[in-house]
């Protein structure tokens, strides 16, 4: 494969235990559209991982493959060592989607009972209703429930089978600050018991605050993978721009601290944590002129990592 190497920043290695999620060389095409272009990812049990990227980055497609809703074009997906559908059949994987997925003409309790009856083992329905704080509305029709109540019902359904892996799609959209804090504290408690949580988001801040690890995806590839502070360190760098014809991009990329090199016409842009070293190199070793150094913000780092110029260049 001709993928540009993602920036591995520490975590992500195999600790010897069975991986909660393991993707190996996964691609997914829809006709001529390459939604996922080669993802390798290992998530250990108990990790809380944010899947961060802009819309259309391939997050949903990847999550669909982990859930066994679609099969990869090439590569292999394993959940706790099993085929995704096998893991689902054992109640090991649950997902909470942002919208839909409920029958309007069932009551809250019927919805939970219905779902519970499909699994070999579940927690008691009453206990799950109580934990989700929806015992009081158990006999209400779903169509009469507010958006927040429906979201609590979705969580109740997802937690019925006591899943080892929980996938969440933009989980706290629409929650207030208090609800968000309570939500993440309960997610944390479960993670300590070994539940793995993978959540998709396009908010850098949410990923940074609540995840142990951030996997940044863009154009169907992982472009960065590390802790929140490691990802933020990317943002602490600067961009060095200079006018230079026929820049030696390989030599620039090899300099210590360089995160990325781009050529735009006669300009070369170097994203680096050590702008002094790049400036020194450009001025001493090359014909570079009009040199500029600018600081990057967090959002800009995100855009740099996920934007078009982060492409490997096979299209």
């Amino acid at each position, binding site marked *: 494969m001709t993928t540009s190497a993602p920036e591995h920043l520490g975590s992500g290695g195999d600790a010897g235990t*069975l991986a909660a999620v393991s993707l190996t060389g996964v691609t997914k095409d829809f006709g001529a559209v390459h939604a996922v272009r080669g993802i390798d990812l290992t998530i250990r*049990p108990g990790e809380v991982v944010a899947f961060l990227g802009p819309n259309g980055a391939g997050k949903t497609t990847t999550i*669909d493959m982990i*859930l*066994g*809703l*679609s099969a990869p074009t090439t590569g292999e997906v394993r959940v*706790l060592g099993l085929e995704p559908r096998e893991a*689902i*059949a*054992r*109640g*090991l*994987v*649950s*997902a909470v*989607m942002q*919208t*839909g*997925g*409920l*029958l*309007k*003409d*069932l009551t809250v309790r*019927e919805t939970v*009972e*219905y*779902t*519970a*009856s*499909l*699994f*070999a*083992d579940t927690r008691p329905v009453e206990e799950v209703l109580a934990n989700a704080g929806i015992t009081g509305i158990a006999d209400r029709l779903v169509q009469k429930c507010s958006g927040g109540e429906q979201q609590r019902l979705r969580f109740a*359904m997802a937690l019925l089978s*006591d899943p*080892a892996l929980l996938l969440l799609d933009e989980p706290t959209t629409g929650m207030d600050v208090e609800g968000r804090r309570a939500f993440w504290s309960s997610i944390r408690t479960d993670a300590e*018991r*070994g*539940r793995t949580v993978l959540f998709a988001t396009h908010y850098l801040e949410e990923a940074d605050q609540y995840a142990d690890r951030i996997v940044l995806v863009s154009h169907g590839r992982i472009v960065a993978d590390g802790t929140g502070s490691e990802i933020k360190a990317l943002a602490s760098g600067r961009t060095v721009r200079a006018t230079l014809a026929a820049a030696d991009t390989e030599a620039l990329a090899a300099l210590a601290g360089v995160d990325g090199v781009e050529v735009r016409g006669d300009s070369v842009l170097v994203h680096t944590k050590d702008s002094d070293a790049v400036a020194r190199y450009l001025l001493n070793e090359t014909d570079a002129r009009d040199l500029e150094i600018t600081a990057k913000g967090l959002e800009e780092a995100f855009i740099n990592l996920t934007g078009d110029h982060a492409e490997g260049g096979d299209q």
Partner: protein
Amino acid sequence: MSVLDPTARRVPPLGGFNVTVLTIELRRLLRNRRTIIFTLIMPVLLYLIIGSNASYANDREGSGNVSAYILISMAAYGAVLAATSGGAMVANERALGWSRQLRLTPLSPVAYILTKALVSLLLGLASVLAVNVVGVINGKAEMPTHVWIAAGLIAWLGSIVFSAFGLFMGYLLPSENVMQVLGPVLAGLAALGGLWFPIEPGTVLGHISACTPIYGLAYLARWPLYGGAPHLVWVLNLLFWLVVFVGGAAWRMSKDTARV
């Protein structure tokens, strides 16, 4: 709480098929006023209005009277409506994302379809029983008891063709109110199939009628009233449309599960 142990997990028997789901599905169906009106009340009213007047009660038809003929036709119509609505529930469920939600549970697609088919057959049975019970109480229809039972059973079991039709349409038309489209379509097919009024065989209309999906069921359901051997074309018609609708439903379903 205990630490999660993924190796201790089991797969449910029968692909997740169970009585709790069946019960909740039935309760849900009976909660739907439109379903009740169209599948249980309307065929009964049609029988009372069309079939139970004095002249029809006096006219002989086969081993019974014309009221009996119309009673069987309306029972078949009710069974067709009920089976179709039961099958077409998948349209609503797909539109709401419930099918996708179910794909995140151990429920197998086969168990799901089996549940839908059973629910639609049970609703069909309720519809056939409603027409027949009202017919008995009303007292206008006359036919031997064995004809009464055989005709009811054929109308009910033959309606499985329309469970498949409902499923096929449910997968084809992802809408929350697919029966608003299918209701008029079925009324038209019932007319063409000879459920509303007899169609002369051998005429152009008769030939067209014999190709439409309700024709086989209509004639087979009324066959016990006359006895003798059933016409091959009735059986072939029923089997042909069963294969078409089951095939269509399976085709759409496999497309659907490729990416929900």
